[in-house]
């Protein structure tokens, strides 16, 4: 081969290779720039990432959420109202369900909830009640709302028992506010007082997590406030 031949071949090979490689890289870069501008994906698009949110468990049926939504949103929760919570009429007109069906909504919460019992005609929390409330409150997990459903037993007038159950619900609320100093507690706790008008509990609820099982009977179970975090999103 002439002396200049290898030089030419070498130069052409080297220049050709570096140019070819550079051009192919540039082509790849141009394609990447196009994808960057349009958002197109080269491969199978990755599955969408979920957004962090509260828990939503299986018992969050539409009926349950309807009641929850009413209590949380429509009864003054989170607003500027001084008085909060729902009374029996609010639930009876909205939910249009029977007493038993209403109580059955809370059956899945048997292990999660507590039933805080009160003395006859009283609304003060005893030590067992406070302990139970603190334990339930601390067991929040992924829940957003804390439900308080206060009742009164059959003895006494309807009006008297409605007010008594409201005071019982408020006792729970005041204790939680005082104990935890949570500035957003108003947005978390839903209060519902039923007096003796609606959804009375029967004796089988004494098997639940009650604060005084020794004095729990058909009357005693309704001198109570049912409390639980609720793992539902609204």
């Amino acid at each position, binding site marked *: 081969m002439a002396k200049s031949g290898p030089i030419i071949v070498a130069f052409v090979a080297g220049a050709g*290779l570096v140019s070819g490689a*550079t051009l192919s890289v540039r082509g790849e870069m141009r394609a990447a720039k196009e994808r960057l501008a349009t958002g197109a994906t080269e491969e199978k698009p990755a599955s969408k990432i979920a957004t962090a949110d509260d828990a939503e468990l299986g018992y969050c049926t539409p009926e349950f959420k309807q009641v929850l939504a009413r209590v949380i949103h429509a009864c003054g929760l989170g607003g500027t109202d001084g008085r909060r919570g729902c009374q029996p009429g609010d639930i009876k007109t909205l939910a249009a369900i029977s007493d038993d069906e209403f109580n059955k909504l809370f059956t899945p919460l048997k292990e999660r909830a507590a039933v805080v019992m009160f003395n006859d005609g009283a609304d003060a929390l005893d030590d067992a009640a406070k302990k139970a409330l603190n334990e339930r409150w601390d067991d929040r997990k992924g829940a957003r709302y804390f439900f308080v459903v206060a009742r009164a037993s059959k003895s006494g007038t309807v009006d008297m028992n409605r007010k008594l159950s409201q005071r019982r619900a408020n006792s729970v609320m005041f204790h939680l506010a005082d104990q935890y100093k949570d500035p957003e507690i108003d947005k978390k706790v839903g209060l519902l007082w039923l007096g003796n008008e609606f959804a009375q509990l029967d004796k089988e609820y004494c098997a639940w997590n009650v604060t005084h099982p020794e004095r729990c009977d058909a009357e005693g179970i309704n001198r109570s406030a049912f409390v639980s975090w609720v793992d539902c999103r609204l």
Partner: protein
Amino acid sequence: MWNRIGRWIAPGLMTLGALGGLAFAWSSTLDYSRHLDRQVHDLRCGFVPGLAAAPGADEGCRAAIYSPYAALFRDRVWGGVPVSLFAVGAFSFFVGFALYLLLSGRNASKQAVRTGGLLAVGPFVVSLVMAYLSATRLGTFCKTCMGIYFSSTLLFLGGLLGILALRRETTFIDLAAADASGARARDEAPRAEGQAALVLGWLALLGATAVGPAFAYARNVPNHDEKIGSCGTLAKPLTEKSEIGMKLALTRVTGSGPRTPVTLMVDPLCPSCRALHRRLDAEGFLEQMDTTVLLFPLDSSCNWMVDRDVHPGACLLAKAMICAHPKGQAGQVLEWSYDQQEHLLTTAKTQGGKSLEGYIEGSFPGLSACMKEKATGKKLEEMLRFAVENRLPVSTPQLFLGELRMCDEDTDMGLVYSIRKLVPQLKARSF
């Protein structure tokens, strides 16, 4: 024999080495360039350059691509200029040079052979350095990189053999010339010495071919500036008084200047979290950061936002960190979790939580009672709730510079450039 080595084998090895190095470097550069769209792509990382990667075979390559050693000028250009691109240019030069030596045969000057051999030391030394960094800093090798190391070695060997053969050729020719037989002296005419000034020319050409493509690359990198910092801010950021999260010193070296407040949301058993942690450390950022760690284990036993155990055992390790924090050991637990990650995941999957607890207790005695307390679970829930309050993605890791969320796309290749844009006072370590 040495004549044959000098004539064919040495330049042949050099040519093969240069071609192989070019192929691997080109494949690596294409993989790198593909990621300029801020997406994750499969890597064509293998011993045969250009073929599709086998599942899981690209882990070493991905670690290499995202490492601080994969590119230069990472603070000037998003993703930097890949080192492999310089290799493309250099190996292209060596292909040409080796072909010249191969085709010229005895017409190639001594100077050319010597220069080729000496220049071939360069890629070999660089490969040794990169192999050392892979072994000691990354703990893994990528197949394409190994291909480049092997090719550089072939190139070097070819160059070395060429120089050795040159010395023996010269000796043989001298002896032959001293012989009275005229025919022999005519058949093995000595090589020309060659002009010394040409060496400078070859060096300049090597420099130009190595740098030229890199220059073209830097000029054509897409503009990422609009995307950086576009991934939102914390709606409810942590405050100084906030008791959520753990302020940790995540590095043994502490910088002397003011530190930038940063929140890092991690899962102790998340490989991406480990990789980000190591990148931040390698770049020298961790020592300049005032880091608050929030734990977000992707384990359904404590995290209601995941419907399966993505990283089983992560809840236990998160609780271990929380319990170790008052003793000033939370950072150590995290580092240990990262170091032992594969073993911990396997233990949790195959032997269950009890075995994992035992393993944690063995390495960090005195934590197990605290890990079972309700207060510990509550602290972990507060960290999870932080994600809910801020509507964050259910993924880890997440890095927040102050209140600003760094996009996931900017936490690997574009890490140095993005941080420089968002927080100029954070300086990357120079290598």
